[in-house]
């Protein structure tokens, strides 16, 4: 029996290879898809820092404040930092991590009450770690990280940065002071970011 002549150079590898190569491709559709994907990929790559531009801001939602303009207003303006009592008795704590400080530097919270921690960064990536525990909340620029905490015992909890952030990283520490619930004062805007108010 004479073997059939090889019609296509790739036929030597078997019919499956040839079939795959000869499959019809809608090049125009593929091109449209690739170009669209490329253009979409440019959106975050072009000026990620300008996320306060209205459309991107709307798309990303309220949990993405611009790290460069935190102080100009919004959730992380100076007077909003620190612990704030909510109507349901829980406490919201807002913090900024920056090189090389946690602001506010010391925070007063009541014991036995849910604490909603909201933290963002003004520059590099930081991590608010509670010393002696394995709890750490990462603080990234351009994003708000949330953590739900509840402290059962009063006392002072030392915190430190656990993500290398620069020359002063190892001195980046702060404290969180937990006081009994009945001692927790109603803090006004000016004294929220301090432990001195008792």
């Amino acid at each position: 029996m004479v073997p059939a002549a090889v019609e296509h150079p790739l036929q030597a590898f078997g019919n499956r290879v040839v079939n795959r190569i000869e499959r019809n491709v809608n090049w125009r559709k593929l091109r449209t898809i690739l170009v669209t994907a490329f253009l979409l990929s440019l959106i975050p790559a072009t000026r990620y820092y300008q996320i306060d531009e209205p459309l991107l801001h709307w798309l990303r939602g309220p949990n993405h404040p611009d790290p460069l303009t935190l102080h100009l207003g919004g959730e992380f303006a100076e007077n909003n930092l620190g612990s704030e009592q909510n109507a349901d008795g829980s406490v919201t704590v807002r913090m900024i991590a920056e090189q090389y400080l946690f602001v506010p530097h010391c925070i007063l919270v009541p014991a036995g009450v849910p604490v909603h921690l909201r933290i963002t960064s003004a520059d590099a990536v930081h991590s608010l770690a509670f010393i002696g525990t394995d709890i750490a909340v990462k603080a990234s620029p351009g994003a708000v990280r949330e953590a739900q905490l509840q402290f059962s015992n009063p006392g002072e909890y030392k915190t430190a940065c656990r993500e290398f952030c620069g020359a002063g990283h190892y001195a980046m520490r702060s404290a969180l002071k937990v006081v009994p619930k009945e001692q927790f004062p109603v803090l006004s805007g000016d004294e929220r970011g301090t432990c001195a108010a008792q």
Partner: protein
Amino acid sequence: MRRNKRLIPQSSRSFYWRLRTAIILALALAAAFTATSILLHAGDGAAERIPSYVAWTPENIVAASSGNAFRGSLLAKRCDHCHGAEGFSSVGWTPNLAGMNTLAIWKQLQDFRSRKRTSRAMGPIAESLSARDVVDVVAYVSALPVFPDPQDNRVFPQAQADAAHSAIASRLITFGDGERGIPPCQACHGPVAYKVGVPSLMTQNGEYLLNQLEAFANRTRTNDINEPMRVIAGLLSEDERHAIAEYYGAGLGLQPAGAAGAK
């Protein structure tokens, strides 16, 4: 049941017609979102405490560092009387400008203009400058060299009042105090590293530095973005503030990290 009956006939529009329509729709939506967002955020900043209107966006950094130094040199004639012709002042409580970072001086002048930093002397002077004047003056002043000049009438460097302070200061400047959460000065103010818009302290007058540290600690000066200096100055003791100010005022900050006084 008529399965093949379509309510909408299949479009015979071209691909590009659809693309164009999609783009127009997307633009219209974007315009609508923008308008809504602007309207929603219009009244946001009513009760907020803003330390400084300066933000270190790339636009601001480019604008602040693109001054004309020659034009600035003419405008800076009126700075000479207090800040010295060579950028070194003849009294301790007036800051030296030579060797200062461009962005740092620019920010302070902007804050003086917007009254976010108050000074009886600098307030009216800064207000009389236009935005372009500020940028030009800053370009000139930050280019002034920091070489010693025996014929210049300057107070810098000034001998330390108490040499024992030197060890405290050098430790804080080099290592900070981790236990209390005080970062080292030189991690932001040089020479180890600089944050954007942070002034170099290496050729600054001690008396001026002390006044500023106390102003930060008392919160009479509040124009630091995200309050780093208010926090740190508040954490330092009276003694440590004096030590740091004298150390820098004596020109010891010019030396490499902790070379002077470290025992």
